């Protein structure tokens, strides 16, 4: 899409990924507004579906972070929803998934990285948050720092690589095999898109949960 809709706004370069993201945002906001404008204790089918989605995500997050799950729910749930929709966008002809753009996956990975420290400091304080880098031994500090950057990089690269390769493979199969052959590939695309969204969100959840609950569940040192 970046080939079709790139334009410059002074120094800001808006490409197809950003445009698609905005479209997804608009669609999600519209769906959210439509599904929650008339909430009642006796739910409609749409409300039931939405409540089920939120309940599943809420229970999954609370299973990993029972004490502070509600604080990180908006971030993790939004990651799952956005990535699922963004990964599946490429099923629509002429559109490309934003997650096949390294800038997009990097932005999300950096956000997760920043969120880990933001929630860690906010929950435990900066001293306790930084203390876990030298736990159980200060020797592990470089490894912790390397781990912080590598897992962020892995987040970005994993999602970007999977989605890009998936689209490329689908395009190649379509070019080589003709009309009916891409159908299994499209099904694989759907599964892969869901799995990648789940993996990204779950990893982000684990990083955040480990940051905000590491000190809380450790037994006191004698």
């Amino acid at each position, binding site marked *: 899409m*970046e*080939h079709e809709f790139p334009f410059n706004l002074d*120094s*800001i*370069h*808006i*490409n197809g*990924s*950003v445009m698609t*993201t*905005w479209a997804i*945002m608009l669609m*999600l*906001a519209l769906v*959210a*507004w439509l*599904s*929650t404008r008339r*909430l*009642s*204790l006796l*739910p409609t089918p749409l*409300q039931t579906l*939405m*409540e089920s989605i*939120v*309940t599943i995500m*809420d229970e999954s997050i609370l299973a990993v972070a029972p004490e502070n799950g*509600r604080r990180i*729910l*908006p*971030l993790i*749930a*939004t990651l799952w*929803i*956005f990535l699922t929709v963004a990964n599946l966008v490429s099923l629509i002809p002429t559109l*490309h998934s*934003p997650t*096949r*753009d*390294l*800038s*997009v996956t*990097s*932005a*999300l990975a*950096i*956000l997760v990285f920043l969120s880990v420290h933001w929630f860690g400091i906010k929950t435990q304080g900066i001293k306790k948050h930084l203390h876990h880098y030298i736990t159980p031994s200060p020797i592990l500090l470089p490894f912790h720092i390397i781990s912080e950057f590598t897992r962020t990089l892995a987040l970005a690269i994993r999602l*970007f690589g999977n989605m*890009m390769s998936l689209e490329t493979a689908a395009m190649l199969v379509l070019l080589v095999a003709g009309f009916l052959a891409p159908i299994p590939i499209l099904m694989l695309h759907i599964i892969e898109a869901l799995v990648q969204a789940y993996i990204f969100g779950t990893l982000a959840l684990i990083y955040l949960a480990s940051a905000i609950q590491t000190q809380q569940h450790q037994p006191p040192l004698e």
Partner: protein
Amino acid sequence: MSMEFDFSTFILEMLNFLVLVWILQRLFYKPLLATIAQRKLHIEDTLAKAQSVQQEAETQRELYENRQKLWEQEKQIALVALHQDLDTERRAQFDLLQKELEQERQRNQANLSRQQHEFEQHAQQLALKNAARFAHILVQHTASAELETKLVQFLVEQLKTLPDTLNASFQRLQNPPVVNISSAFPLDAIYRQQLADCFSTLIVLPLTFHYAEEAMLLAGLRIELGSWVLQANLQHELSGFAELAHDFE
């Protein structure tokens, strides 16, 4: 091209995602979670109310069962009391009935006795009447001068042996009395003399004798001396039967 890192896209995507988080938090998670929480609260409240109602129902059931037991006990007590009352009332009614029956029996017995007594009286009266009638017929056919003579002789004998009280009363007479002597048959002079002698012995005053005949006397005499009347005849004796029969009426 997508493998190239574009800083503008990087920054815009970060901002986009943060905006999306904010939008979904406002429009999606918050209201849905609030509704879910409200529904949970409503369900818990309903469950609590249901438990409360169930508990109240259990309490009411226990209360009802206890009350039912009490009612059963009260019913048994009332039944026993009722049976006792019925027995007492039955006994009292039975005693009363027995008493009334006894009274009725006595009343019937009295009536029977009275009826029997009346029957006996009636029979006696009838017998006496019959006897009087029979005696009257018999005497009427058997009465004769000889019988009268025997009666006169018997009278004379009796006048000689009067009790002293009667003799004293004759002695106290002031005026010379008239002695009226009635007979069924003509009285012989011999007997007239015997009678005069007897009265002269009894009464010192001079006496006047009048003799008369009355067939109604059948046989015998009737002697009137002032207020004193001496009946020595069959008619008088027969009239005794009639009087006796009259006394029974």
